[in-house]
């Protein structure tokens, strides 16, 4: 009898253990599997590559990756992409969870945070360096991906800001086109004229844009951030900027608060994209999105300079590629980056979808074959080459959060809930806390 009981206990204990194990499996399946994905069943290496962008960029990227897989049969690339805001949040969460993709597209504003957080691999290290050739890159731009002597990311292209406008409407209004080196006061007068003659605002209210403010600051010899990452301007500077833009808004020369607040990073929701203004202030690469909305054509004009002619505009490394520090395949990841940036066939497919290429040889190679908006952008860059000052160094970690705060604080001004002075004081206090 005792033996019998013992047996029963054993069985029930065993079955209990089995049941518990089963339950555990059910709970934990969601958490496993990451390891198995890294290497396919037949020994092919699977890389994860993520980026942000629109459909056009997605189509061209997929085409380029098909070619990559053909040229490197042992490597398979799994991709995913989304809009910038969603991408930024998802990538931060993945990186924090130790699940960063092997290869990721990064923005200038993200480099500092990701590099100092230990997420990124040093691309100048022996393994990646063996396959990633950076010798033909614009060295100034390449330097923007370097922190403390380590190369954490490589720029894919360069972009710059622009005053983009509906060519047909501007001409019909009979207003003189922007001249190279125009100043902010000339820009303001032009906006007033456009508003007067077309009955709609001349352009987007640039008060909400930290990028526009930066260009305005640079035109006065100042900068958003000092070299050691502190705030480079005072509440007085910001008050002057917001007083200037808020005045134009009250005159109706730039977009009303109800229009400005709808901006969400897509060109479709800018006042120009919605057909309620004649021009917009934006980065150049996304402006390709205006063409379906304004089929008669757009023109890219330089951003205004300071009153003494100091250009505020600069060439910014527009997108970076980085590799996760804990990737299982550093060599293959670097190979993918090398392909995207140095392969002539890839360059032909990708065009200027991520900005004008940083590889000098590639840039000259593809120049002749560029058409449509790629051509417009290339010519725009050529017209600015040699006239601009060096880009600022990578912004400090807190900047990506401050960008949103900037637009929100200006909302308080444009909806007339705060004076420019009040909002500027608020912003500066907040920014100092963010950067400490």
């Amino acid at each position: 009898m005792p033996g019998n009981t013992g047996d029963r206990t054993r069985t029930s204990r065993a079955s209990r253990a089995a049941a518990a194990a089963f339950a555990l499996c059910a709970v934990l399946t969601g958490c496993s599997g990451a390891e198995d994905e890294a290497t396919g069943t037949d020994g092919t290496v699977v890389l994860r590559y993520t980026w942000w962008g629109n459909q056009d960029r997605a189509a061209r990227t997929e085409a380029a990756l098909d070619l990559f897989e053909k040229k490197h049969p042992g490597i398979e690339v799994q991709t995913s992409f989304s809009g910038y805001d969603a991408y930024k949040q998802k990538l931060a969460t993945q990186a924090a969870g130790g699940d960063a993709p092997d290869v990721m597209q990064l923005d200038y504003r993200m480099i500092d945070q990701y590099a100092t957080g230990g997420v990124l691999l040093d691309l100048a290290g022996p393994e990646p360096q063996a396959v990633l050739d950076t010798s033909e890159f614009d060295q100034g731009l390449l330097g923007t991906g370097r922190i403390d002597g380590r190369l954490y990311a490589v720029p894919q292209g360069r972009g710059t800001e622009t005053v983009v406008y509906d060519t047909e409407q501007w001409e019909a209004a009979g207003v003189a086109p922007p001249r190279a080196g125009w100043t902010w006061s000339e820009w303001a007068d032009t906006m007033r004229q456009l508003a007067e003659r077309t009955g709609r605002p001349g352009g987007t209210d640039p008060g909400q844009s930290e990028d526009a403010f930066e260009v305005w600051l640079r035109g006065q010899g100042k900068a958003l951030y000092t070299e050691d990452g502190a705030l480079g301007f005072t509440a007085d500077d910001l008050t002057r900027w917001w007083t200037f833009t808020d005045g134009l808004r009250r005159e109706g020369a730039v977009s009303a608060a109800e229009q400005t607040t709808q901006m969400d990073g897509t060109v479709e929701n800018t006042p120009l994209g919605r057909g309620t203004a004649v021009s917009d202030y934006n980065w150049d690469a996304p402006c390709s999105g205006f063409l379906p909305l304004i089929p008669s054509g757009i023109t890219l004009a330089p951003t205004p300079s300071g009153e003494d002619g100091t250009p505020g505009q600069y060439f910014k490394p527009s997108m970076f590629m980085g590799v996760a520090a804990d990737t299982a395949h550093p060599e293959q990841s670097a190979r993918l980056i090398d392909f995207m940036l140095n392969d002539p066939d890839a360059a032909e497919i990708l065009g200027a979808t991520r900005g004008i290429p940083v590889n000098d040889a590639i840039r000259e190679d593809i120049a002749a074959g560029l058409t449509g908006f790629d051509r417009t952008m290339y010519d725009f860059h050529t017209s600015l080459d040699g006239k601009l000052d060096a880009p600022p160094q990578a912004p400090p970690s807190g900047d990506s959060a401050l960008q949103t705060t900037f637009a929100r604080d200006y909302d308080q001004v444009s909806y007339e809930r705060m004076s420019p002075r009040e909002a500027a004081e608020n912003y500066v206090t907040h920014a100092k806390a963010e950067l400490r």
Partner: protein
Amino acid sequence: MTTTQTSASLRRPERPAATGARRPAGRRREGAAWVFLSPWVLGAVLLTLLPMAVSLYLSFTDYDLFNPPSWVGLRNYTQMFTEDPRYWRSVAATLTYVVIAVPLQLALALVVALALKNMKRGKGFYRSAFYAPSLLGASMSIALVWRALFNDGGTVDNLLGTGGWVNRPGWALLAVALLTVWQFGAPMVIFLAGLQQIPAELYEAAAVDGASRWRRFLSVTVPMLSPVIFFNLVLQTIQAFQVFTPAFAVSAGKGGPADSTLFYTLYLYDRGFVASHMGYASAMAWVLLLVIGAVTAVLFRTSRSWVFYAFEGDDR
């Protein structure tokens, strides 16, 4: 929230006096209970209790997701209360929303329930039809449709000529509140069930005494229904404090215009996932939990004076 209930039922039965080497049958059954409960227990511990404990810890730290959390004591809390004007704007927006949306939603739910109660034909159909928005309304897509409806050049603008609600401070919050009010299905169904519990004799007696319809509603329906009203009020208030999806979609994730729809949870999300201040966001979450707890406690306290339990007297 069912934690207390379940753990109470799991409480160990009184153990019989010494039983020697043999394990008591009760204990074996208890073991089996744990095995069957294990998926739920694991889920509750790993996915609810543990994260809550971690978030409590994080609320006293500065944590940006990339670098290890560093202890800052109460700084997140003091910063929230004394140095962050946007935090108070989010509190104001949330309270305004709760005060507008909850009573409106409950009133509408009650009116529709009353109309359905006496309906002879098609009751099932209308009940489902009125419930449908509650199933649809929580989805992102409806919130996006809402944004389009209330945007400038949208349907509402074209019909009423009011301009785009979602771009005007004050009006935007109303647009979000309407989306919530429209989802009155759940409280309506509960009201309907409650209404059907009220004995018909009470109405007959009141009618014999010459009470008007309105009088009957005030003196019979409202008191008899008060436990159900209270239940709905507590439930909807707790939900309203945590509103996120509609505000996120209607304001395109920004809580605009001019922070007028920057609800508490939206700002919490913004601090955590946009600005990468997980410590600050955790502190905000704990304050929200405490505030919801306090508001619920206050509601329970007031309930003593207005909620009427019909069978209270019989429970001797």
